């Protein structure tokens, strides 16, 4: 009798499991990809991309059941009416003059959170802070510092692919946020196979943080169902780009293997993945890969080798470079380079000088977004945009569109968005001045004498994959091979941060006073207390 019951239970359980597995096939999909690109100066770019598609939970229901999408993300999207979310943590700067285009948006150092929330700007304000708090819990990051005083509402720079008018885009940048394992661990946990199998097995924190560039991002938006049903589903992407130097691990620049580089081996593909591939964007000559790739094709003038992990187990990939060929690699410098520097010295005033270089022989329209905190009081009348081309006199460039948002003290940052049509082969220099505000002493960070980190400016421009051959960011090129991905590529280029040194009070002085007075008080109190509580008696012999 008892046995029978157990048997029935087991049967029921297996039926449920079966049902789950089948529903998994129909309701969601998971794609894992790794792109390896040897860089010109001997370093290696690894770009991990994990994509999940899942039908969104019903708006009116409170029951959340997801197959692949992490439930915490689904709940956040549902609770805060998210249309789109992007969150990136970055360390190190992408050196475009050596490495070419960045794999993703070359996020600046720090944390950037960008969300499109349903509802008007006023109505969704508390949802925005709620979202930041929720994400700070999920990713163990100090995103709770996001508030109105460091949130801007860009109108031109981040145009969504499926933009709806009913939503408001908000963006906040925390330049002081550092990325570390504590952020990576929850990020890995969200993967369906975590780091137990598939490409996720390579995620070795010891190697990922001994790097020259590291950018960890998630993005959530809606897309058409890749399985072909045509319905809108949630798309959740987890991205990790890291530039490693083989020399730093005691390897040689000329020959190394993936397992040596990451100190881990790839196992079998993740069982729930519908696609798991490792792609190698190789230079035309001088690179030997073992084992042989499953397929090699030329994408927009670039050779891409593909290893399909579902066809066979890829244990390791060995790279060896023919000596002397590396210096002959040609990199295509990105069409636009942008740098921003702080000018002036001293604690009262300063300025910003941004240099945007157009390296192409065609004019390119870019959007320049610069958001400065309120304590840098920008004088917009001092804005000068000069453009100089080789062999031509410098000319004053007029922005074709410009949006200025003045700052409110402790309420809103100042932001400027300019649409500039850069002349061909030109260097455009934007200059403007600011005064440095005087802060309350509690508003200074603990390391006040370091200065305030100011978030980078963003230069956005569009590239269409059809017009030129190899003038594309890596991902746009690889995306172009897949029919369902977009043909147009918006590049967001982040400039450097800068440090604004504000007038700093002598913080140690109150501390000295407090510690001295406390010491005196303690000594005095001890003596007096001792005297008061001691009972003096005459000893008798």
């Amino acid at each position, binding site marked *: 009798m008892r046995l029978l019951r157990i048997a029935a239970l087991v049967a029921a359980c297996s039926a449920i499991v079966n049902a789950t597995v089948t529903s998994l096939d129909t309701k969601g999909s998971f794609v894992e990809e790794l792109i390896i690109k040897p860089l010109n*100066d001997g370093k290696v770019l690894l770009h991990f991309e994990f994509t999940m598609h899942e039908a969104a939970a019903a708006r009116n229901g409170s029951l959340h059941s997801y197959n692949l999408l992490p439930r915490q993300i689904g709940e956040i999207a549902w609770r805060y009416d998210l249309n789109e979310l992007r969150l990136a943590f970055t*360390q*190190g*700067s992408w*050196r475009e*003059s*050596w490495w070419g285009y960045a794999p993703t948006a070359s996020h*600046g*150092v720090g944390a950037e959170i960008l969300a499109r929330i349903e509802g008007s700007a006023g109505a969704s304000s508390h949802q925005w802070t709620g979202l930041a708090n929720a994400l700070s819990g999920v990713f163990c990051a100090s995103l709770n510092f996001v508030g109105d005083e460091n949130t801007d509402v860009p109108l031109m720079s981040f145009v969504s692919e499926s933009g709806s008018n009913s939503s408001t885009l908000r963006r906040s940048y925390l330049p002081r946020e550092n990325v570390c394992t504590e952020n990576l661990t929850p990020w890995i946990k969200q993967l369906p196979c975590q780091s137990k199998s598939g490409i996720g097995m390579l995620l070795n924190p010891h190697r990922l943080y*001994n*790097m*020259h*560039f590291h950018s960890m991002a998630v993005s959530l938006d809606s897309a058409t169902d890749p399985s072909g049903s045509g319905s809108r589903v949630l798309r959740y992407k987890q991205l990790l780009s890291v530039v490693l*130097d083989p*020399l*730093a691990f005691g390897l040689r620049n000329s020959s190394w293997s993936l397992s040596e580089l990451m100190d881990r081996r790839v196992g079998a593909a993740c069982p729930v993945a519908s696609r798991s591939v490792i792609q190698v964007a190789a230079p035309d000559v001088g690179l030997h890969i073992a084992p042989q790739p499953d397929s090699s094709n030329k994408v927009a003038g670039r050779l891409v080798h593909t290893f399909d992990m579902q066809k066979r187990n890829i244990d390791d990939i060995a790279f060896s470079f023919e000596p002397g060929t590396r210096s002959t690699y040609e990199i295509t410098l990105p069409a636009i380079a942008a*740098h921003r*520097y*702080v*000018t*002036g*010295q*001293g604690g009262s005033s300063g*300025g910003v*000088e941004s*240099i945007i270089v157009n390296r192409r022989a065609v004019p390119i329209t870019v959007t320049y977004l610069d958001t400065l905190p309120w304590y840098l009081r920008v004088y917009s009348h001092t804005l000068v945009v000069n453009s100089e081309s080789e062999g031509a006199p410098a000319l004053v460039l007029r922005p074709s569109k410009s949006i200025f948002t003045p700052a409110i003290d402790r309420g809103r940052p100042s932001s400027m968005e300019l649409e500039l049509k850069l002349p061909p082969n030109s*260097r455009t220099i934007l*200059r403007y001045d600011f005064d440095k505000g005087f802060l309350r002493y509690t508003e200074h960070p603990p*390391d*006040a*004498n*370091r*200065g305030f*980190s100011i978030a*980078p400016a963003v230069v956005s421009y569009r590239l269409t994959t059809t017009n030129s051959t190899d003038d594309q960011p890596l991902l746009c090129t690889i995306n172009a091979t897949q029919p369902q991905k977009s043909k147009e590529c918006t590049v967001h280029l982040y400039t*450097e*941060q*800068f*440090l604004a*040194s504000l007038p*700093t009070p002598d913080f140690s002085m109150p501390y000295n006073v407090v510690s001295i007075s406390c010491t005196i008080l303690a000594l005095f109190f001890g003596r007096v207390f001792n005297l008061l509580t001691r009972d003096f008696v005459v000893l008798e012999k």
Partner: protein
Amino acid sequence: MSLVLSGQGEKTSPALRVARKYSAYLSYPLAVAGIAWLLLLPYSELFWRRTYFSENAMLPGQADPCFGNEHHLAAMDRMDAALSTSLREGSVGQQRAAAVAEVFSEFGLDTEVQTIVYDEVPGVGQHQGTNVHGILRAPRSDSVEALVIAAAWTTADNQTNINAVRVMAALAQFASEQVYWAKDIIFVVTDAGEIGMEQWLRAYHGHHTQSPLYVRSGIIQAALSLELPPAKTYQSMGLYVEGKVGQLPNLDMVNMVQHVSRIEQLPANLHGMVDESRRASVWRKYLHSAQLLLRHVRSQAFGSLVGVHAPFLRYRIDALTLSGIAKINDPVAQLAQQQRELFLTEPVITPMLTQRTVNSIGRSCERALRSLNNLLEHFHQSFFFYILPANRKYISIGGYIPAAGLMVGSLLLQAMHLWWMQGPPELRSSDPRTRIERINKYYLLLRRTIPNSMGIILRVHLLGLVLLALPMILPHAVLTNTTSTAYLFTVALASISMVLHITDTYWTEAARPMVEWRQLKALIELYVAATIACLSVMNFSLAAVLFAVAGLPLVLTRACEAGSRAQKAAGIILLLLASPVCTMTLGRNVALGLHPLDFTSSPFRMFLADFHHFSSLVYPLVCLIYWPVNILCMIIVLMP
């Protein structure tokens, strides 16, 4: 008002009465005490304290150095090769810079060559220079902060500084292999010395210049300049810290560099002066320290004479220069010396330093860079105002500023006393019956004499203003060495004729004094005291020097009321000896080791150039305070 009238026997506060009673006797002792205080500074027992690290984040000397493997030394050979090919091609400046840029970019640095054009003094002596720099981007940061290693192609005493460029190449190679940098490292080489570095800094900080920089990094937190003259080995290093307008780097930075260089067996001594041994007599120690302090005062007051670190300090960047000191019998140094004497120019490529020396210098720099890299904030913990009387000893501002207070006090007390003593003696009787009459007389005196006194003061200062402004207004005044001397003598003659004119106008009618010399002197002393007081907080050395050349003669000057012509003549001669032309020419010639009466090159030109390029205070102070006060003293001496 009571202060003005208290000399006239009015009822005043007790403090003023005390001041009135003793001011006559106190001003000379105070001046003597001020000077004595200065003379006590080199005595080790009183004000000296041991230096210590305030900034704990630096952790100097905690990491094992890894500079010095064959890659790093090969980088020096690579630099040599690039330089020698560029030199074969003929010209120096541009090619040399291009070669350095090429080598730097091989090591993965972002490089840029800057061509600058500058006037030596306003409107005169156009020169062209080339700066080249390479930026090693810190792998994990975003070009937010930077450290600078700087060098000029020639050292301050005109030797080739190629060793520094070589060491920079090795350092660049070494640093590009490390991943722990949190700050970018910028390697700058200039061929126009301090002015070239100043132009580079101007461009770096976005000031409008004709030659802007496009490859930049973030805020520069500290700079280290290297001067490595040709030699085989160095016995020690010299450490030079004084900035162009008297600014000093944070004491922590000086400590740190001394600390790490001592670890590497190549100690960095202030101004290259090795400490006396412990068992030396007190007097020897005193003399040694006094010598060091004098060098310090000279560098601080007139702008650093060694190293390209000086311009950095103006931009709130802590900086210093490390300079190699060759052994006396060093063969390479001797050879370079001989070649310099024979050919006037020496070959640019000189033999390499020994590997051991390169390692010591490189590791010192590595340790220093790592300590600076550890800094979380801008230097702020330790002193910015200090005097260094010996290696690893300092005198804080609390120790030396009383000397300035005493000097200023002596000027002020004398001014007060003279103010009360002005006018005929009957004004100072204490007879209550004549009170109203006395006050009326007193005001009459003030009304008659003050405009005249002020007139004299203003006229003399106008002359100083002309001296200050003429080189700027006349941009093509050919200020060559000889003509500027001539210009100086013209101004000197003009000033003497003015002295004679003023004395003629105002003292012909001796019976009715139109100017009261006590009043005149009191007014001058007031603003001299104010100037010295302000200056002593910013640049103590300059304040002390100004007191010595202008304040002290002023305190001692008095009208020879019943004196003979001989006395007057002696006074004038003494004042002429203390006049700017005399002191500056003598001082400069002694400092540069020239013949003391060599008038061929004018010291004014040097100060004018510093004023033009670095807004140095010396030239305006000479024109607006020192010279006018000297002339006014002569006027006072000539009063009947």
